[in-house]
């Protein structure tokens, strides 16, 4: 029994391997990019906008609203990363309605790559907001004793992001495969429908957790600045 689409290999030379995961990922990227290029080709600002522009505006406004609700007040600079995560994972999980399709998110390498990009994006946005020293100080946040625990939490939440997405999608596919051999008539359809729901929820959760981590990195450094300024004000008043 195949556990992941990594095991379907089309072409291999040395350590360079082209497997089903890579092919599906590139197909989804092509689909998303071409759809958005087609939809944003003739943008208008009047009362009459096209259906595709309306659709795109709904998606972008919705993601912006979610990011703002978590606590990032200027979602414009984060939607490029978070929106891409959500749309990619969502599309990859929704396409299981196609026959013979294996979601690339059911492979540990895809989810590890996504989680590592979150791991790198958190310090990127933190440093962008408050400078290198200001970001590094957030690791010593309550006291310097917490430094190893902060580092452990960074690593463990990356592993958790990876295994959560992989386990959910892989288990959906596996349950359908097991049911096909036991009761192949109706139940696989029901489980696939449940898989659609799980896939969408997992895409939402991945994006929201990435937003929460970025918001924590950005906020803690800002809070520290505010505290030091108020403190200096009090000192000057006194």
């Amino acid at each position: 029994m195949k556990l992941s689409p990594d095991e379907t290999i089309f072409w291999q030379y040395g350590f360079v391997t082209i497997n089903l995961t890579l092919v599906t990922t590139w197909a989804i990227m092509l689909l998303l990019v071409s759809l958005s290029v087609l939809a944003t080709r003739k943008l208008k600002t009047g009362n009459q906008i096209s259906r595709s522009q309306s659709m795109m505006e709904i998606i972008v406004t919705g993601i912006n609203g979610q990011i703002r609700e978590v606590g990032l007040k200027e979602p414009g600079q984060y939607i490029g990363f978070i929106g891409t995560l959500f749309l990619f994972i969502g599309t990859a999980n929704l396409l299981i309605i196609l026959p013979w399709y294996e979601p690339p998110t059911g492979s540990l390498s895809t989810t590890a790559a996504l989680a590592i990009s979150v791991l790198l994006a958190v310090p990127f946005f933190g440093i962008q907001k408050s400078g290198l020293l200001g970001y590094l100080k957030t690791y010593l946040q309550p006291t310097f004793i917490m430094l190893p625990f902060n580092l452990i939490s960074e690593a463990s939440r990356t592993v958790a992001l990876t295994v959560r997405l992989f386990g959910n999608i892989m288990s959906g596919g596996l349950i359908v495969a097991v049911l096909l051999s036991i009761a192949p008539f109706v139940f696989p359809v029901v489980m696939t429908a449940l898989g659609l729901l799980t896939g969408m929820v997992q895409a939402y959760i991945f994006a929201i957790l990435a937003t929460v981590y970025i918001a924590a990195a950005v906020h803690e450094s800002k809070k520290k600045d505010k505290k030091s300024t108020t403190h200096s004000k009090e000192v000057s008043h006194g």
Partner: protein
Amino acid sequence: MDNVSIIAIVSIIAAGFTTGVGCMFPALAEGKSVSSALSAIAQQPDAAPTITRTLFVGLAMIESTAIYCFVLSMILVFANPFWNHIIQ
């Protein structure tokens, strides 16, 4: 009994127990959190979006423990490293 059958028996029993116990307690925890979220929404319907978002994030955190157990039992059943070591 040779090594191969001992490893097979222990792996299968351990996989069953892992998924069983690992589904039981996260299910209890998720039921508790959903019920308290529902009563909070019933008391304050205005706060429903915030409660729902927090609930989803919390459910994902709880569910990931069940997923760890599931992945572990999948490894034990389908990609057992000890089994592969003995077979080779």
